[in-house]
C-alpha cells in the first residue's frame, strides 16, 4: 500500500484542465501556500486559448485593452511560475475515487494516479477529441488503419496513406509524410483553398507538381472498406467522379472539438452539459471537496467568460484552504502588501 502511494502524484489542489482559469487557480492557491497539480488532455497548457484561438485578441480581460489568447496563456504561465505548479499533460482524467482519509484519487486514461484533498474541475467545454467524419463504419477501422492524431509518425514509414483536411495539421503531415517518411501520400480536401499558412500550401503545391505527393482537391472520402484492417477509401469529387484507392492508412485530420467526456460520470449534478455548482458559496459541486470553475460549471446567471472564471477560482481557493486546514486562521492578504512568496 505504501509503495502505491509513493507512485502517486500528491498535491493540495488537483486541477482538471490547464486553461486560463485552471492556470490562475495556481496563483490564488499559491498565495495561500497551497500547491497545485494540473491535468490536461492537450500536450500544452492553455486550453481553448491555445488550441482553438491563440491568435485571436481578447478585449475583456480587466487591465488589458487587448491581449492575444496565446499571450494571455504565456502571461498566466509566468504569473504562476513562483508557485511551481506541476503538470500531467496529454492525458485526460477518467475516474475519481474517494479514500478513507478524505482525499481523492484521480486516474488518467494512461493510468497516472493523483491524490489530493481538493479537486477543482476547470475543464472548460471538456476534453478535446478529434472531429470524426460521419461515415457509418469509421469506428470499425479506428487503430486498424484509421487514426485521428499523429503521435509517432514512424508508424507510417513507407506506407500508402491518404490524409484528409484543409488546415495546417493536414498539410504539415502530408508534407512530412512525403518528404521524410517516404510515404505514397495523397491529400484529399473538399475545396480548392486551404486554411493554412501560405508557405505550407505553396510547398504542397510544388511537391504535387514534382510528383512527390498527390493532391485531390474538391474531393472527399465518402466510404471505407476492409476486413480486419482498412483496405480502401472511396473518394468522391465535386464533379461526381468516384475512385476507390487501396491504402494502408487514412488520417482524417479535421481538428479537435471539446466534449465533457468521463467527468460526466463522476456523480456530479449535470445541467445542459455543465456541472451544477453553488455560486452563493464557493462553486462547490454536490460532492464535498470537488469544485467546478470556469466554463465547465453552471449556476443561475452564469456567464462563460474568462474573467468570471478568475473570480470563481479565487473564491474556490479560499474555501479549499478552509477545508484542508479547518482549524487554521486565515485572512485575505493583498499582494501589494505581501508580494508573492514563491515556493
Amino acid at each position, binding site marked *: 500500500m505504501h509503495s502505491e502511494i509513493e507512485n502517486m502524484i500528491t498535491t493540495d489542489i488537483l486541477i482538471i484542465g490547464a486553461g486560463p482559469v485552471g492556470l490562475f487557480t495556481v496563483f490564488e492557491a499559491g498565495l495561500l501556500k497551497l500547491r497545485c497539480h494540473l491535468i490536461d488532455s492537450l500536450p500544452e497548457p492553455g486550453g481553448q486559448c491555445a488550441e*482553438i*484561438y491563440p491568435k*485571436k485578441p481578447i478585449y475583456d480581460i480587466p487591465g488589458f485593452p487587448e491581449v492575444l489568447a496565446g499571450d494571455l496563456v504565456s502571461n498566466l504561465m509566468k504569473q504562476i511560475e513562483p508557485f511551481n505548479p506541476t503538470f500531467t499533460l496529454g492525458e485526460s482524467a477518467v475516474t475519481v475515487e474517494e479514500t478513507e482519509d478524505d482525499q481523492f484519487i484521480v486516474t488518467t486514461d494512461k493510468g497516472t494516479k493523483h491524490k489530493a484533498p481538493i479537486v477543482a474541475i476547470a475543464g472548460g*467545454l471538456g476534453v478535446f477529441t478529434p472531429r*470524426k*467524419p*460521419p461515415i457509418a463504419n469509421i469506428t470499425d477501422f479506428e487503430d486498424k488503419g484509421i487514426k485521428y492524431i499523429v503521435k509517432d509518425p514512424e508508424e507510417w514509414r513507407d506506407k500508402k496513406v491518404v490524409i484528409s*483536411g*484543409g*488546415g495546417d495539421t493536414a498539410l504539415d503531415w502530408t508534407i512530412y509524410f512525403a518528404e521524410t517518411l517516404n510515404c505514397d501520400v495523397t491529400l484529399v*480536401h*473538399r*475545396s480548392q*483553398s*486551404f*486554411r493554412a499558412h501560405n508557405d505550407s500550401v505553396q510547398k504542397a503545391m510544388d511537391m504535387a507538381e514534382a510528383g512527390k505527393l498527390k493532391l485531390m482537391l474538391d474531393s472527399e472520402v465518402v466510404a471505407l472498406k476492409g476486413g480486419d484492417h482498412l483496405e480502401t477509401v472511396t473518394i468522391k469529387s465535386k464533379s461526381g467522379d468516384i475512385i476507390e484507392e487501396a491504402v494502408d492508412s487514412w488520417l482524417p485530420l*479535421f*481538428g479537435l*472539438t*471539446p*466534449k465533457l467526456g468521463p467527468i460526466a460520470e463522476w456523480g456530479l449534478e449535470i445541467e445542459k452539459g455543465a456541472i451544477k455548482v453553488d455560486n452563493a458559496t464557493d462553486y462547490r459541486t454536490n460532492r464535498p471537496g470537488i469544485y467546478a470553475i470556469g466554463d465547465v460549471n453552471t449556476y443561475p446567471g452564469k456567464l462563460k467568460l474568462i474573467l468570471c472564471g478568475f473570480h470563481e477560482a479565487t473564491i474556490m481557493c479560499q474555501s479549499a484552504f478552509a477545508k484542508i486546514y479547518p482549524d487554521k486562521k486565515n485572512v485575505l492578504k493583498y499582494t501589494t502588501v505581501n508580494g508573492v512568496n514563491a515556493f
Partner: protein
Amino acid sequence: MEDLIKITVIDREGEAHELDAPTDMNMNLMELCKSYELPVLGTCGGMAMCASCQVYVENDKASLERNDDEQAMLDDAWYVEDNSRLGCQIHLAQEHNGLVVRLAPSDDF
C-alpha cells in the same frame, strides 16, 4: 417594436420555431438560437471555427455568400450543402425579416 424581426428556425425534428429577433443587439443567428435554448452549441463562441451552428438557408432572406473564414470552416465540416451557412456569421438585420433556416445535423445532440 420596430427593431424586432421574425426568424423561423426548423429544428432537427422538423419542428418550426418562430422567433422574435432584435436587430439592435448586435446579435447573430447562432446567439439567437441559443437565447431561445434551441439545440445549437456555438462551441467556438462565434469565431467561425467550429461549424456547430451550421444552418441551411431555406428562403432568399439571407445571402448564401460566405466570408473567407466561414468558407474555410465549411470546407472542413460535414453535411455541407450549397445553402449552408454558419449561424454565427449571419448578423441579424432588417433584411433578414422572414428568414427561414433549418439546423444542420449535429453529432452533439
